[in-house]
């Protein structure tokens, strides 16, 4: 990993939820620049809510700082402009739009003239996207849609990429391929990644560090290789 000494994401005392139901009870965690960090936990632990709070999709309290800049009470469209891209659970493509429009809309906040060349790079990396660029995103297979959703998010040239259960509903071989790609993208572009994942072994395989979430609080944290070897965690959370 090419992590530096700069903190990309700093979260202190994060609370949030849906209406009267509070899901997060004060989380403290951070992600270094260039690092891949994974958040593990059982269903209902608050993993998705954590990402939704960071990207401004839900009401939250606590301090969130992105690359030293306080996010405050900004909502999703402004948080994207601070360099945070979020691939939500369940693909997060725009199914009725063409593949090409999905990539183009990913660059919605950009004003530079390199959007087309960035799109070409994705078409090079994923020829299937080029073959189907005029087809609706909803017609792609699950794995292709997930890759398109990631490409769509990276088209905004984010500093921090939030990935919510990218493995959900995908065949194991596609999932391991996908995680290999995440590691490559991280190496090539230096994009910092915060990954929420049920597939703990795979996620810890590419991550530098991990946090384990339980009932909206951080239960434990540590370097990925230590978490993988921790017997209690293996039994309770990793199902290994």
């Amino acid at each position, binding site marked *: 990993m090419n992590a530096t000494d700069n903190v990309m994401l700093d979260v202190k005392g994060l609370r949030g939820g849906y209406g009267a139901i509070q899901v997060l009870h004060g989380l403290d965690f951070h992600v270094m620049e260039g690092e891949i960090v994974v958040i593990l936990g059982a269903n209902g632990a608050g993993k998705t809510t954590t990402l939704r709070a960071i990207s401004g999709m839900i009401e939250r309290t606590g301090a969130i700082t992105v690359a030293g800049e306080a996010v405050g009470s900004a909502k999703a*469209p402004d948080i*994207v402009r601070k360099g945070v891209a979020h691939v*939500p659970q369940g693909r997060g493509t*725009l*199914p*009725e*739009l063409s593949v090409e429009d999905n990539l183009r809309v990913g660059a919605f906040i950009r004003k530079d003239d390199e959007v087309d060349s960035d799109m070409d790079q994705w078409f090079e990396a994923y020829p299937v996207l080029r073959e189907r660029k005029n087809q609706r995103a909803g017609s792609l297979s*699950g794995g292709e849609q997930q890759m398109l959703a990631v490409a769509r998010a990276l088209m905004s040239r984010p500093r921090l990429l939030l990935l919510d259960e990218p493995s959900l509903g995908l065949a194991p071989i596609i999932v391991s391929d996908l995680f290999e790609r995440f590691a490559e993208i991280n190496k090539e572009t230096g994009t910092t990644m915060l990954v929420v994942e049920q597939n703990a072994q795979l996620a810890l395989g590419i991550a530098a560090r991990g946090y384990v979430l339980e009932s909206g609080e951080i239960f434990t944290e540590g370097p990925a290789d230590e978490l993988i070897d921790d017997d209690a965690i293996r039994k309770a959370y990793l199902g290994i």
Partner: protein
Amino acid sequence: MELLINRVFDGLSNGATYALLAMALVMIFKATTLINFAQGEFAMFGGFIVMVLVLEQGLPVWIGVIVGMILSAVLAAVIERTLIRPFDPADHLPLVIITLGLFLAINAIAGIVWRFDPRAFPEMFPSGNVFTYGNASLSWYTVGTMVTIAVVAGGLTLLLNKTKIGLAFRAVSSNLESSELVGIRVGPTLQFGWAIAAAVGTLGVAVFVASPVRQLEPQVMVTGLIFAVSAAALGGLDSLGGAIAGGLAIGLVQSIVVPYLGVPSELSLFAAVAVLMLVLLFKPAGLFGTAAVERV
């Protein structure tokens, strides 16, 4: 035979107005899956603005129509911001009630300002016929209505497919949450849809009452809206091309099927509703509509 030809042309030119109003409904439905029941009244009000600009302020007719479209777009944008946006877009019942309230309010305001008497409206197309065959004739008016819907359909297609705001609008129509996550501000994007819809509706009413045999009055679009909703549903509610096909089809049903079946003219409105019911029963997505894409 000649009567049939005349009825076809009548049906097409009536259908053009339903098509334009249906396109306006489709613009809002695509983005919000909401039917704006005040769309016809927006359009009627816009028609009165055009009438004032042309007959009272002396603007050339097409300049008056374009300024009237812009003014009605601005009014619709203000209404969207103040009366629609404060409500949860996913909860349709309050929004439907608001559009019904707007229907009554705008109709009443137009009645207070301009009274309920029919008014003359400037002609937008040359008078006379392109050709005559026996008793059958194709008027410039009918040709003008066809050209108008073609230009509007082309313009909307370009706007939606070739501009950044059009891309944002289509994104919001597809998935609200993913749109916000790429940085699209949903409120102003929907407001854009309301503004465009109002402008198209105003053009629809202007074209309708520009016919030498019609006049402008506050009730002009009360039944027109029902025809337009039927047209939009027939076309599939989210398809601009479908709105045109649906509008023309409803216009033809009204002018051909109704008289030949001997349906009393009082029931011609019901004929539109009957078409609507049949569509909803047998082809709920309409003729050209997209069945919802499964979101995994």
